[in-house]
């Protein structure tokens, strides 16, 4: 048994745990403008990050974006997942493939597509101007809204596929039994489908929340220079600031926040409906 998972364990250890340990070590080093990095064991980078209002703001932006995007993705994804799960077999595989297709296009390409649609010279603004409805372009891109739309578009397939596999495992007869006993469609959803789908809903939300917390390309390309989320901030420290210790500390703060919220959310929701 163990021999079977050993290769996977080794790969994970080499490609994930190794760099993480290295990064953790770097986060404890000291930054120097001249030498870039001085070997040390200090928590100063963490303290600086937490104390700095700018990075507190970035963290807040990231959290708010992740929460809003996760909630909206759930709201959009659940009905779609339900329809997909309850579909007749012939159409089902086709729709499943259609759901997967967006994943074939990278995030950067997709963000570029949104720019083409939402940008100042994009399709929407060009159309509005062409129709004489506006003279100035509407500010659609480089807004938090644009980032949210772009992010939701990226993560929605994950949510739909996770949810639909769970909903599929709920026998249709159970829903019919509720309807037969006098439950309206909404009551069937509230009393039967939702509680039974909850484990999958938690899983889908966790997955999507993690993806949202780590949004990079979408945030950079659709958010513009005024809008900053954590992942781009980390990258900035490594590439532009050359401040590796601080960047590493930011990365771990992001990781810790994601982890804590994920575990907390799972535990809370899990307990709420635990039998």
């Amino acid at each position: 048994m163990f021999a079977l998972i050993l290769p996977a364990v080794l790969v994970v250890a080499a490609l994930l745990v190794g760099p993480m340990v290295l990064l953790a070590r770097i986060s404890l080093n000291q930054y120097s403008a001249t030498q870039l990095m001085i070997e040390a064991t200090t928590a100063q980078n963490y303290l600086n990050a937490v104390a700095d209002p700018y990075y507190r703001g970035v963290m807040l932006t990231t959290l708010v974006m992740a929460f809003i995007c996760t909630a909206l993705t759930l709201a959009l994804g659940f009905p779609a997942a339900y329809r997909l799960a309850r579909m007749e077999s012939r159409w089902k595989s086709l729709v499943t493939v259609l759901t997967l297709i967006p994943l074939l296009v990278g995030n950067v390409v997709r963000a570029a597509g949104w720019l083409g649609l939402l940008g100042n010279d994009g399709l929407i603004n060009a159309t509005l101007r062409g129709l004489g409805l506006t003279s100035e372009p509407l500010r659609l891109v480089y807004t938090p809204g644009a980032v949210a739309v772009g992010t939701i578009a990226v993560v929605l397939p994950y949510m739909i596929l996770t949810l639909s596999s769970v909903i599929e495992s709920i026998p249709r007869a159970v829903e019919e039994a509720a309807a037969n006993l006098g439950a309206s469609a909404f009551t069937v959803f509230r009393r039967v489908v939702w509680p039974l789908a909850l484990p999958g809903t938690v899983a889908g939300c966790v997955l999507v929340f993690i993806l949202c917390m780590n949004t990079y390309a979408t945030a950079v390309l659709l958010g513009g220079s005024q809008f900053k989320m954590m992942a781009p901030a980390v990258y900035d420290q490594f590439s532009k600031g050359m401040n590796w210790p601080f960047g590493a500390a930011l990365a771990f703060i992001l990781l810790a926040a994601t982890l804590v919220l994920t575990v907390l959310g799972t535990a809370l929701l899990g307990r709420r409906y635990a039998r």
Partner: protein
Amino acid sequence: MGTLLLDGVSKRYGEAVAVDRVDLDIRQGELVALLGPSGCGKTTTLRMVAGFIEPTAGRVVIGGRDVTRLPPYARDTGMVFQSYALFPHMSVADNVGFGLEMRKVARAERDRRVAEALRLVRLDALADRLPRQLSGGQQQRVALARALVVSPAVFLLDEPLSNLDAKLRAEVGLEIRELQKRLGLTTLMVTHDQDEALAMADRLVVMEHGRVLQVGTAEDLYERPANTFVAGFVGRCNLLPGAREGADVFRLTSGAAVPCAPDAAAPGGLLAIRPERIEVAPDPAGAGRLRAMTYLGGRTEYHLDLAGEAIVAVSPTPLPDDPRRRLNAGDPVRITWIPDAARVIPTADAASVTPTPEKSPAR
């Protein structure tokens, strides 16, 4: 209040006809079983009554109210699903109480009725269990209690015994029948098991290809099948081609003359004779021949040949000193039956037989 009327109910899927102009009238407190081979439209019919499938034509009337266009939750039917379909995240008591909750029955009253329903199915000790902590038979009884507790106008059972093992099946079947009688529930049940249907139902509906072939009591169907399909489907039956020659004589196509029940309405066609109504005796001058004999413990089956016609007869296994015990394959035998045991059925293809008009039930 609890009557069910199906008036020309049909369901088409494109060109395919799943249910074809079914008429049925079930009176208060009656248990009617839909019986027929796989794919004949039993489940579709039941689900049209429950409201899960909308008929393409016809009316469903429950307690005098036309419910054809009403959604399932507005119909007041209580359905027991083949898979039981219990709510896996709710306790037994909450499962049973769900329908009362939907009907806004007050808490105290609800608890009382749930307890009563659970006592009825002898599950009061397991009220706090979850469905997955119950055996199949217990889950089945929870499903029954859940449907019963709301006193539905019509009780619907979809193959209620098919998920139980053979021993439990007969027992639970009797239990359901007893409950149904005691509570006076108007019931429509689906089964493809004729023994189940014969044992439980007041009346049976034999269906084929979406159409009703005959409606009647177990005795009606067994003794007076309307056509060859019913004769062959309900119990075993020998069907011998030929024509009536006198009041009580039937001439087989193969030449032999055999006795038959006098019935002016049936001049020719097939002679239907049940295996257990046939007497077999060793007789060197007999017209029949024994092809094989199968010893089945309490019963013995005789595979016979009468002038080229294959006939099956069944009898209680004779005592050891009975001459029939010493029969061998190829021996000549005498094959007899009393005229009333053999009925002449018109030879029409079962599918083209017009359904017998249902006898208007006494009210």
